[in-house]
């Protein structure tokens, strides 16, 4: 972890954030990821050339919270829209903010091909193992046995196979310069997540390749757990989805 992000410091509301309360459910980790993203944009001094792609999922209102240029992309197509923006104006610092359904189900082709091409963009995937926005349906990352509204008896690997490990897939592409899976259910992990995010941005700023950070993220509402239990359950997720820096060419 870098010197900078470790030193004792005061913690203030990031200037990149707008003064508008998040619409997320109480205890939802989307909020922590938002704050980290704002901090990193601020720290890297790229607010003025940032271009965000809001995806379709619980985080679709991204633009209400970040005081940077933001475009909405159709469900799953954030990486394609980001590619278009970055190719059109390479000076922009382009990022996507997507859910697991958006990135790895409907948008898998766009996500993987952007990574394979080594697009100079930063993709953030919030893996909460469900479709939060639409009411908690199965996602490619749902754990075996996990109940969702479309797998009332729990995910059956015979019917749906096993959870898709996106970070592991992406790390194999030479075009990917940084790839990590993080969590924010403990203070130390929050700091590590921040550092991963910083590097995922450096990947594009230093023209090295695609940057990717996957957040294991609690969805208390659809997991039907209170915020504290939900945060604890993230440790369980980590058994299937190792928290790890898979690739770091920064």
């Amino acid at each position: 972890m870098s010197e900078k992000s470790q030193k004792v410091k005061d913690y203030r509301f990031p200037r990149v954030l707008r003064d508008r309360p998040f619409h997320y459910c109480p205890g939802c980790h989307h909020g922590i990821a938002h704050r980290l993203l704002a901090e990193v944009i601020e720290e890297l001094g790229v607010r003025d050339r940032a271009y965000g792609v809001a995806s379709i999922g619980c985080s679709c209102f991204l633009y209400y919270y970040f005081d940077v240029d933001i475009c909405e992309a159709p469900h799953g197509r954030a990486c394609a829209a980001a590619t278009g923006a970055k190719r059109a104006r390479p000076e922009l610092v382009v990022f996507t903010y997507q859910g697991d359904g958006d990135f790895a189900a409907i948008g898998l082709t766009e996500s993987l091909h952007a990574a394979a091409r080594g697009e100079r963009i930063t993709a953030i995937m919030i893996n909460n193992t469900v479709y939060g926005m639409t009411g908690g349906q199965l996602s490619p990352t749902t754990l075996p046995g996990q109940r969702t509204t479309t797998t009332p008896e729990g995910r059956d690997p015979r019917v749906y196979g096993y959870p898709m490990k996106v970070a592991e897939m992406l790390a194999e592409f030479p075009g990917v310069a940084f790839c990590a899976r993080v969590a924010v259910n403990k203070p130390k992990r929050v700091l590590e997540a921040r550092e991963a995010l910083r590097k995922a941005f450096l990947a594009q700023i230093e023209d090295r390749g695609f940057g990717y950070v996957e957040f294991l993220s609690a969805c208390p509402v659809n997991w039907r757990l209170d915020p504290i239990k939900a945060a604890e359950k993230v440790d369980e997720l980590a058994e299937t989805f190792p928290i790890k820096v898979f690739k770091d060419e920064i």
Partner: protein
Amino acid sequence: MKPILVKGSEAIALGALAAGCRCYFGYPITPQNEIPELLARELPKRGGVFLQAESELAAANMLLGAASTGVRAMTSSSSPGISLMAEAFSYMAALELPAVVVNVARGGPGLGGIEASQGDYFQATKGAGHGDYHFLVLSPASIQEAYELTARAFDLAEKYRQPVMILTDALLGQMKEPLILRKIKPRKYPKDWALTGAKGRPGRVLRSLFLGPGELRSRNELLQKKYRAMRREVRVESYLLEGAELVVSAFGSLARIVKEAVNLAREKGYPVGFLRPITLFPFPEREFRKLAEAGVRFLVVELNCGQMVEDVRLSICGSTEVRSLPFPPSDLPAPEDIYREIKRCLRSPRR
């Protein structure tokens, strides 16, 4: 200026270059591969971006992203590929993004064939995607016009902040004809909506989700207002209307064959005229209505099962007779086939 001999698809690519198109995204599909192939050679030379996408879906959404930054950008495809872009089109219209989309249509439905077809008229004009949105749709009938209309499409797209479609077909796309590379001067329009980084200003947003009370209605009303304003862009080609009792109408490359049939008929003394919509949306309602009010009857010829004929009927609102002469895709009709029908129409009593 010396003409060059090029395909319609190439003329479209050249028109885009002339208009200052900076980015092209597309996925191969017959019969329009000459567009990406020409741009793959030429765009990088001029500092532009050529990118073959992994699919039409990706291409359309790359277009969305590029257009959102205010650069001139385009994609092209053919019928099935256009269908796949429907969702993105609806978003682009809702986000008010200027972008150019080319459909070199082929026979359908399904995989269909690769012959010329006009089976995508409804798709182009009524909105392939969900919700009330429209392309501005231009349809050229010659290679020169393909060049000029493509270039114009970029201006119109920016003027109205609105996706513009060039609807053509395999016949025009694949045929060669001399083209004069007339110099194009792209117009400039304000881009105070473009996402170029928020330096010195608050962040901008391009979104299509409107949940506040009345918000979505306002967005729709804004779009409808724009569609009405676009009526001033209506263009037609009219020919031999003087003294015509029957006007034969067709669009796109088929109109050439129809025009030949009209010539044949006129030579034989039949009182026939020709009206070709160049803008398919907005549709030249007034032009048709005026003729209908003068008592003219219509024969609408199409390379499909009868689609534009509905717009002709809606334009004239029952005031005279409108006959449909549809040719579902396979082989093209000959001028004689149409000539025969012209004679039949003129002989039959008016309804």
